[in-house]
């Protein structure tokens, strides 16, 4: 197999720790006068975005540029993709242009996996979020942030740390990737959501599920709030915004019941007043902004480890045989 990052589930503990440790070293670059490394000089990274996500796209772009890669941004909007060109033809075009890596964001679950295994392209594929499947670099940057706050850092995993993920688990690729990665790193994960927003079949996931945020919040080393889209209300996943916020939102009172060292996380963009109150979002326990900073270091680490050598230093994509 080639060198891809498709799913957080593909990463072993050692792979994950290697990525986190590498990111830890790369984060120190921020303190240097020249925040750039020559490592990927002459390599081309294509950001192939079928969904709008300026935040993720510029994070990957900054990461690739700090490693001296050439970056091409390919947005589905206003391109031939919106005129009916297939994923395959887009991929063949990128291949013809000599892309060494394709960072793909796609609305269809499994599209990065398809891209990596179809033989359409020869370069690396990095999943930047696919449908309601996975978003592995988000999980890595979340784990990086937790490790910095909750452990002594480099070389460590998250063994025994209690992480609570709250919100729309059903539609969240962030939650899926986090559950896999955090379990691999030894953390104890609890998902909290109204039963309508918990996936059918969740019992096979390496985590606990609770419908009661108050019962869990006091035992959490980190509480990760997921964005809840207001349109879910119209599909009867919950009755009203007010009821959601009351039962599953994080406010000052609930935050006060968290252990002193515990942090509040949010992948952004935040729905203030919905899943998180302004008081919590603006408190110094909330790592949302730091997560964005860490995202660049993590994506640099991933690009370096996938592209920096003659073969990948981290796991291959899942194959049919290996599941």
């Amino acid at each position, binding site marked *: 197999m080639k060198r891809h990052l498709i799913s957080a589930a593909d990463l072993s503990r050692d792979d994950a720790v*290697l990525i986190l*440790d*590498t990111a830890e*070293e*790369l984060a*120190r670059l921020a303190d*240097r*006068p*020249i925040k*750039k*490394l*020559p*490592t990927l000089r002459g390599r081309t990274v294509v950001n192939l975005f079928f969904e709008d996500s300026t935040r993720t796209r510029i994070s990957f772009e900054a990461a690739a540029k700090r*490693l001296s890669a050439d970056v091409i941004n390919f947005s589905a909007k206003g391109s031939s993709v919106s005129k009916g060109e297939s994923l395959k033809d887009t991929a063949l075009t990128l291949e013809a242009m000599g892309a060494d890596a394709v960072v793909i964001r796609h609305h269809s679950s499994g599209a990065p996996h398809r891209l990596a295994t179809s033989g359409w392209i020869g370069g690396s594929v990095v999943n930047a979020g696919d449908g309601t499947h996975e978003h592995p670099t988000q999980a890595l940057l979340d784990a990086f942030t937790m490790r910095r706050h909750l452990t002594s850092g480099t070389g460590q995993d998250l063994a025994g740390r209690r992480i609570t993920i709250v919100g729309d688990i059903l539609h969240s690729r962030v939650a899926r990737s986090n559950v896999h990665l955090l379990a691999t790193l030894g953390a104890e994960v609890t998902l909290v959501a109204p039963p309508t927003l918990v996936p059918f079949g969740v019992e096979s996931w390496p985590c606990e599920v609770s419908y009661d945020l108050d019962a869990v919040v006091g035992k959490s080393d980190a509480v990760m709030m997921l964005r809840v889209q207001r349109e879910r209300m119209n599909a009867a996943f919950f009755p009203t915004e007010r009821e959601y916020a009351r039962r599953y939102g994080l406010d000052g009172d609930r935050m006060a019941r968290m252990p002193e060292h515990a942090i509040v996380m949010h992948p952004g963009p935040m729905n203030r007043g919905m899943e998180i109150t302004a008081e919590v979002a603006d408190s110094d326990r909330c790592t949302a902004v730091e997560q964005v900073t860490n995202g660049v270091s993590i994506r640099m680490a991933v690009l*370096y*480890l*996938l*592209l*920096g*050598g*003659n*073969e*990948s*230093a981290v796991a291959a994509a899942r194959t049919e045989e290996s599941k």
Partner: protein
Amino acid sequence: MDAHTSSPARSVLEAPDIARVLTRIAHEIVERAKGADDVVLLGIPTRGVHLARRLAARLEEITDRAPGEVPVGSLDITMYRDDLRLRPARALARTEIPGDGIDGRLVVLVDDVLFSGRTIRAALDALGDIGRPRAVQLAVLVDRGHRELPIRADYVGKNLPTSLRETVKVQLTEEDGRDSVLLGLRETAPADGQ
């Protein structure tokens, strides 16, 4: 250092020899740097860092400074290597630049073995992205020859003429539990299927 070393390896330097040559190098640095007041020692991971720390301790003794007064750090050159694409990507080592930086200072790079010179070339590139030293010098425990770039060391513990079939392995207590420099024979080309 070379991979695929095979025994029997012959010891060419033992712990007392290493201690002696490090002391000599420290004296040479003081002599050439006229007191070594602005010296910053940067070791190249892994063993270069330990050697840099040992040299710093000796410089402090010689120049009568308190422990920790001679700035010492580490400089990882992985991201600057010219052979990245010949091998799998590897873990990064720590780059630790002393608090006052390297601008206007005399940086002495410290490594265990000087061979092709490519590591030092990468280190010079890395330094350029960190600051602008007054001058850069190079100290190595062993110079085994076979340079592929126009680079030479300013301080050499031992010149060790070798053939390309030979390997030089430096062992240091901090990493390996003992101090020694071993000269061995490279295994013939790895057999098929290895």
